């Protein structure tokens, strides 16, 4: 049977067909739908973890217990999970263990553009890269086989265009599994004391040499001869772009991109006149190939090191570099577009519980040390109320660092506030708060507890009382957790009440000790909360635009009756009746819905 599956759906299917018993992840675009789809396969025990490090550790535990297991994350998640990954490379596995990294060239929804192929070399583990959904499904099975045969974790890399592109897939079935019966103990294998680890390191080095040998005969690596004038080395979605751009060329198509099959690369070189390495981001393949002493006629000298490629770009840049045979259709430079169009960036939903907090923060003269989530949109106009955002969980530690050096002079006291979402607090904010308390900090932390991981589509968190599969679970009690960390001042505010929000934030900023403010209000999108729309009384509205500072798309300026007269209007379809804009109006022009008589 055939279906059109996204790369992520295909990976989930591949996990099921490959006999995976356990999968763990922390959400992150473009990887999130992998676990959301795995949840649908009852034979796989699957879970969200609080962060990627924990996801990797639980999956490794499952592997040691004999299960094929999967840890899934976006590219920056591997930074968090790098610690267990690097030493799992030494312990090796029992049941196959695969880590999926979903990279995001062009940063469609990420804070950096790191190329995680580098992790394979750094951690000395093999790397597989599918070029469409069929390969994503098939190569995942290969990943588990290699993991078990070579006793190694396997890194499996997609990019946004693999994870979120849909192509046709032939579906297979899952073979029946025997239940696991023994939990073997093997101290030298799994206990990385220096003595045992020293014995492991040479084996890890040998393993990579052995894998390079195997790479020569894996059918995911192959030479596809066409016109010998142009030879292209490519992998992943870039292989598809290059195929489209140079339909007649010769290809070295790599499914395993670390370690590389040197013999195959040399053979390919000897068959083609010019050799081009086409890859997004770092010159990862190019450098390895050049190190082999193989001549490369074009790589990063032709292609940019930032952003994504596409078929047109590959056709134009390689043609400019002297490669014949591009599809003429792709060679024309696209015509100019329309100039000066307003951008349409993402924005806080109408009714979002974060809106009131940023409306207030934008008028307080504080440095907002921010974090990652929907609330990062508080950095955008009209708020401009987030002044740093680096990685998940960083807000609290950074605020502490800022207040430590600014407080020391006694001049700019308590001018820093950390803002963090609930999911991000559980992910890696707790240790930052612990640091603040331990080291006698005085900064204020606002926890935006909207009861979900909204930014990635509304996943459960350790605080929502439910697991990935919807089963009831214990709920982390944020106030009691914070209290246990040593926080003495815990305040609460209703983020829809601007007066209260401002009062509480001001008061806690003044306090000479650290404090935590909890704004608990559910995400209106995730919980499908719909309130009746508010309206503008056109008699009372004088067009001062003060309400527009809440940055809500339901509000707009329209022409009034008189000349030069502008008024604000509320779109009743988009408005979610939160009343935040009304609190900005000094003329009482924004009115609540009239209750319908029963």
């Amino acid at each position, binding site marked *: 049977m*055939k279906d*059109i599956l996204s790369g992520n759906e295909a990976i989930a299917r591949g996990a099921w067909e490959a006999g995976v018993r356990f999968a763990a992840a922390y959400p992150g*675009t*473009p990887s999130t739908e992998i676990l959301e789809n795995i949840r649908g396969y009852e034979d796989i025990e699957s879970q969200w973890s609080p962060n990627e490090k924990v996801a990797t550790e639980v999956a490794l535990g499952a592997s040691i217990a004999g299960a094929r297991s999967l840890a899934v994350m976006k590219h920056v998640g591997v930074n968090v999970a790098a610690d267990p990954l690097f030493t799992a490379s030494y312990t090796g596995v029992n049941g196959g263990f695969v880590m999926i990294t979903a990279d995001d060239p062009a940063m*469609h*929804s990420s804070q950096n553009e790191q190329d995680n192929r580098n992790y394979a070399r750094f951690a000395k583990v093999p790397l597989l890269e599918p070029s*469409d959904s069929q390969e994503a499904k098939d190569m995942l099975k290969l990943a588990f086989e290699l993991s078990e045969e070579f006793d190694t974790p396997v890194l499996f890399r997609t990019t*946004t*265009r693999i994870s*979120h*592109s*849909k*192509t*046709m897939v032939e579906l297979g079935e899952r073979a029946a599994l025997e239940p696991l019966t023994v939990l073997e103990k093997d101290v030298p294998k799994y206990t990385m004391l220096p003595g045992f680890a020293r014995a492991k390191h040479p084996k890890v080095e040998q393993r990579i040499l052995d894998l390079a040998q195997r790479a020569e005969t894996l059918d995911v690596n192959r030479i596809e001869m066409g016109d010998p004038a142009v030879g292209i080395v490519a992998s992943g*979605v870039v292989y*598809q*772009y290059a*195929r*489209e751009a140079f*339909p007649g060329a010769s290809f070295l198509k790599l499914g395993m991109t670390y370690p590389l099959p040197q013999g195959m690369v040399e053979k390919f070189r000897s068959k083609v006149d010019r050799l081009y390495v086409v890859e997004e981001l770092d010159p990862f393949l190019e450098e390895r190939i050049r190190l082999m002493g193989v001549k490369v006629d074009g790589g990063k000298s032709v292609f940019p090191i930032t952003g994504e490629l*596409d*078929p*047109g770009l590959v*056709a134009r840049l390689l043609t400019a570099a002297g490669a014949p045979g591009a*599809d003429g*259709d*792709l060679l*024309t*430079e*696209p*015509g*100019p*577009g*329309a100039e000066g*169009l*307003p*951008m*349409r*960036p*993402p*924005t806080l*939903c109408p009714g979002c519980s974060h809106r009131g907090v940023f409306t207030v923060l934008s008028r307080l003269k504080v440095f907002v040390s921010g974090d990652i989530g*929907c609330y990062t*949109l508080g950095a*955008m*106009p*009209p708020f401009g109320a987030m002044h740093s955002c680096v990685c998940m969980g960083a807000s609290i530690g950074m605020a502490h660092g800022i207040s430590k050096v600014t407080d020391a002079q006694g001049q700019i006291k308590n001018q820093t506030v950390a803002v963090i979402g609930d999911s991000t607090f559980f992910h890696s904010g707790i240790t930052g708060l612990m640091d603040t308390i331990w080291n006698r900090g005085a900064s204020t932390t606002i926890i935006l507890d909207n009861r979900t991981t909204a*930014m990635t*589509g509304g996943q459960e968190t350790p605080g929502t009382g439910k697991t990935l599969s919807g089963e009831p679970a214990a709920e982390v009690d944020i106030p009691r957790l914070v209290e246990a960390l040593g926080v003495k001042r815990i305040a609460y505010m209703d983020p829809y009440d601007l007066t209260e929000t401002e009062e509480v934030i001001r008061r806690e900023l003044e306090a000479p000790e650290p404090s935590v403010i909890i704004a608990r209000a559910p995400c209106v999108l995730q919980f499908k909360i719909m309130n009746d729309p508010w309206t503008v009384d056109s008699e009372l509205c004088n067009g001062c*635009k003060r309400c*527009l*500072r809440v*940055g*809500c*798309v*339901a*509000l*707009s*300026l329209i022409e009034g009756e008189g000349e030069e007269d502008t008024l604000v209007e509320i779109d009743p*379809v988009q408005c979610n009746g939160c009343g935040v804009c009304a609190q900005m109006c000094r003329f009482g022009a924004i009115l609540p819905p009239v209750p319908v008589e029963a």
Partner: protein
Amino acid sequence: MTENGTTTNILISGVGGQGVLLASYVLGQAAMKEGYEVKQSEVHGMSQRGGSVVSHLRFGERLASPIVTQGTADFLLSFEPLEALRFFNWLRPGALLIYNTLRVNPSTVAAGLATYPDGIHERIAQAWPNSRGIDATLLAEEAGTAKATNIVMLGSIARELPFPLETWRHIIGRVVPPKTVDTNMKAFELGRAAGR
């Protein structure tokens, strides 16, 4: 058209929450049912938060890339005028642009930080003479709900594509909520009539 001359490239643009991805899904399923190879690509991420959304759909006998190359789209289906104007130069010369005439303000306009282009329909017609504006949201309301705007838009392009009516009906019937099948079929018909 690319490679062997039988590939159709469609770009669908709109605003997060307008149902762009569902429309693209229907097109993909219809193409598959008709025996074509199908590739599709979209960027979600923060799309639900009212940002621009683009979906690429390609079908044909043999194709490699899941994304359409700028300047080679055979059709641009835009769910909002500004998003038509933003993407018209993805079309190949002479190709067809169909767009929903209902304006949706971007957040920058709502916040009073930018203005929505004046005379947008004239600008589209000038930039791309082979374009048709359709009151898709009005037609969807006529069919029963504004939520069916994406199905009206599909109807508006239906005559241009080599899929029989039963295929459209079959796929739409499968993807929309059961209670709304009649409304959506009506929306599709209204779109088809308007797409002339």
